[in-house]
């Protein structure tokens, strides 16, 4: 059922051109001004944005009960990326990250942590718990451009998805991943957006791409 080695060039082009979907980002921050700022930054990058003022509200929106149990009528289908502040009263961004990674339905959604404080142990802790990236506040437009790269390109015809992650390269995984019928996840060291001509060779030869 796997459609070839990444398909022909023309279908790649078609797909890149057809990427009109607006990724839906859930932004969590207890600071009102920071919420407004991150919302604008994300909207400027063509994202659809939902904001939440704390971890509990974020979990509610995602359809995850506090106990981690999944509710039926959820917004899970809609969220492509979660970006959260670290320092929040009640549930910290780290605790929220853990809850998301523990849930069976949300764990594949990339989570980015932001903080005003550049504390290496904090950063390591978050990355080890599965955060895709750690960003220093206040955020700038260039930071958000990097985030945009985390959101999967929906390759509708072949059903591939490519994501780029910060951190160590991991093995190529093939399997069923919601919401794509068939999905192959390829991870790279984070760098700038792949150019169109780089896409096909990267899918065809992911191990080579990982070495870049």
């Amino acid at each position, binding site marked *: 059922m796997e459609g070839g080695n990444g398909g022909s060039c023309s279908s790649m082009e078609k797909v890149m051109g057809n990427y009109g979907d607006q990724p839906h980002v859930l932004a969590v921050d207890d*600071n009102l*001004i*920071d919420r407004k700022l991150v919302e604008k930054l994300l909207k400027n990058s063509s994202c659809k944005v939902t904001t939440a003022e704390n971890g509990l509200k974020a979990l509610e929106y995602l359809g995850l009960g506090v106990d981690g149990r999944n509710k039926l009528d959820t917004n899970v289908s809609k969220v492509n990326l979660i970006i959260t502040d670290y320092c929040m009263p009640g549930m910290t961004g780290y605790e929220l990250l853990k809850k998301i990674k523990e849930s069976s339905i949300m764990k594949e959604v990339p989570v980015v942590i932001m903080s005003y404080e550049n504390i290496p142990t904090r950063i390591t802790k978050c990355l080890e718990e599965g955060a895709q990236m750690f960003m220093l506040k206040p955020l700038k437009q260039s930071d958000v451009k990097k985030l945009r790269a985390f959101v999967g390109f929906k390759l509708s015809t072949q059903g591939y998805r490519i994501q780029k992650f910060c951190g160590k390269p991991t093995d190529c995984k093939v399997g069923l991943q919601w919401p794509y019928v068939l999905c192959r996840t390829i991870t790279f060291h984070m760098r700038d957006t792949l150019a169109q001509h780089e896409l096909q060779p990267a899918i065809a030869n992911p191990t080579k791409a990982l070495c870049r």
Partner: protein
Amino acid sequence: MDVGQMQRTWVEYTKSLFREGFLDAQFTQLQLLQDESNPDFVVEVVSLFFEDSERLLNDLARALDQQIVDFKRVDAHVHQLKGSSSSIGAQRVKNACIAFRNFCEEQNSEACLKCLHQVQQEYYLVKNKLETLIRLEQQIVAAGGSIPIEELSF
């Protein structure tokens, strides 16, 4: 004053605010975010900052006025204020908050009170500056001109 003169005034005034440390690069980021889809973005964010800060300053005064000061609570408020001021580029307010947090850690009420006064002072100063700046911007726009953000590269 014609539009050109108003624009030049705006540039000089903004540059002076940066030079004197009232504002930092983050404020430019805010200016850059303003566009046709959101022409009042800066005013909106700055207004939010004013509301939020004044509320926090009141909470701080109240918290420090207690018989037994809850330093955790005080620190939480200062943390919020530091965050907001950092996000809009109000550098001197942010720096005053950083000093404040150190004294919270030491649980030194007298020093904290001094810090609060310092923060209040910096806040009212920058509030005044920002209001002036926004007024200038509104005048330029009303006269049919645009804000010459490009002139700020220095």
